[in-house]
């Protein structure tokens, strides 16, 4: 997807920027990888498709990148993350060139495997919102990553150049895909059982934390020793502590890109907790992260009529 537009744009701006952070085909089928295009001959490698899972904004934060003026390929969610980073003073606007990529959502390999068994790349022909498998047509929407099923922003709210054309807002999700709703509907003990079971799986590899562009603390609270908040042992409650702590640190900042969830090697729906916090913030503090630079972050401001009933 967008290959022509990408190469044209890239050859135009390379030179103006010191590098283009984009995606290139990975070493395995159905994988894309972050790619830093710095030379003319790299331009041909740039591409974009339904497997461009990582949130590239993360790469803006490496030391060498902070000093450079770079272009970056952003999906809707990634662009929102960049806006949060701008707002938090982590990157400079003049150092950035945003290449917006309207996104049909990322396709989940495990969902494909569930349906088609062992996957063979030549069986598939990909188009923007459909694909064919051995000649049979399927809708991309039925195979999306969980994080993309709930996406409300396929288009970057901010960009310097756009690949292709803006997409219409995705339709409201059918009830079955409303993850938060499904958990919220459970009674308290069932919710606990659900999270306990998921937390039991976590090995605390921090793939979620490290894939998240907004988890940029030089020392994460889990690594602190004075005080030491929790131990390194990956037990259920310690893991829950980590994920709760992380969700709270993300409060009002998380752009719901789902990079953490897609990064999890054990398939834990870690996105649920930060997602719920964002829902609360949307509902009670009328704020959505990464939409503009002006609205103050919800935890850096207050209103006198904020919820108060929970306090005696």
């Amino acid at each position, binding site marked *: 997807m967008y290959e022509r537009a990408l190469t044209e744009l890239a050859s135009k701006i390379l030179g103006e920027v010191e590098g283009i952070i984009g995606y290139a085909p990975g070493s395995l089928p159905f994988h894309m990888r972050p790619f830093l295009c710095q030379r003319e001959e790299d331009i041909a490698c740039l591409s974009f498709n339904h497997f461009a899972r990582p949130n590239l904004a993360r790469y803006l934060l490496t030391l060498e990148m902070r000093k450079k003026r770079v272009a970056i390929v952003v999906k809707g969610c990634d662009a929102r993350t960049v806006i949060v980073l701008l707002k938090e003073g982590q990157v400079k606007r003049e150092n950035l060139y945003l290449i917006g990529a309207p996104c049909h959502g990322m396709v989940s390999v495990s969902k494909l495997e569930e349906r088609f068994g062992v996957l063979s790349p030549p069986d598939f022909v990909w188009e923007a919102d459909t694909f064919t498998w051995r000649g049979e047509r399927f809708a991309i929407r039925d195979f999306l990553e969980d994080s993309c099923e709930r996406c409300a922003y396929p288009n970057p709210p901010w960009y310097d150049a756009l690949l292709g054309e803006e997409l219409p807002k995705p339709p409201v999700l059918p009830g079955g895909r409303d993850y938060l709703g499904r958990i919220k509907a459970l009674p308290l003990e069932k919710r*606990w059982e659900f999270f306990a079971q998921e937390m039991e799986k976590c090995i605390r590899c921090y793939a979620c934390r490290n894939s998240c562009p907004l988890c940029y603390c030089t020392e994460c609270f889990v690594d602190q020793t004075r005080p030491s908040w929790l131990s390194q042992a990956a037990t259920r409650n310690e893991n829950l502590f980590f994920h709760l702590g992380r969700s709270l640190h993300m409060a009002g900042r998380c752009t719901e890109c789902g990079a953490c969830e897609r990064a999890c090697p054990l398939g834990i729906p870690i996105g649920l907790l930060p997602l719920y916090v964002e829902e*609360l913030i949307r509902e009670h503090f009328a704020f959505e992260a990464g939409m503009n630079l002006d609205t103050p972050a*919800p935890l850096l401001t207050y209103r006198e009529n*904020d919820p108060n009933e*929970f306090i*005696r």
Partner: protein
Amino acid sequence: MVELNAWEPKIVAFLCHWCSYAGADLAGVSRIQYPPNIRIIRVPCSGAINPLYILKAFREGADGVLVSGCHPGDCHYLSGNYFARRKFFLLKELLIFAGIEEERLQFSWVSASEGQKFSQVIEQVVEGVKKIGPSKKGLKEFAFHV
């Protein structure tokens, strides 16, 4: 094994220096009775409480946590408790979402003159926690038998 009826909850109370701590003090000097289950930690302002303090208290074995500060508008630092309120709201809702009983984490506004209210709050908190029993959901699980 501790029998359930012999069990007394341990409750960590984070009290703001200017209001709730003074309120607790007043309850003390006025000889108002309240359950002895709380361990008070004095903090400069309810806004100074990092949600991690609360999670850590659960991890280290608190059966309940109470956070108490000045009434809205009365903050010694003008608006600390307003900021705190947003944080606490999110934390409380998040814990409930994760399946942790709402009685575990409670909040109150207690001013320096409300000794009576302080003792009532403690009674209610202790009662609530007693109802749901010992905390297992946040506690570190290094049960270790030699």
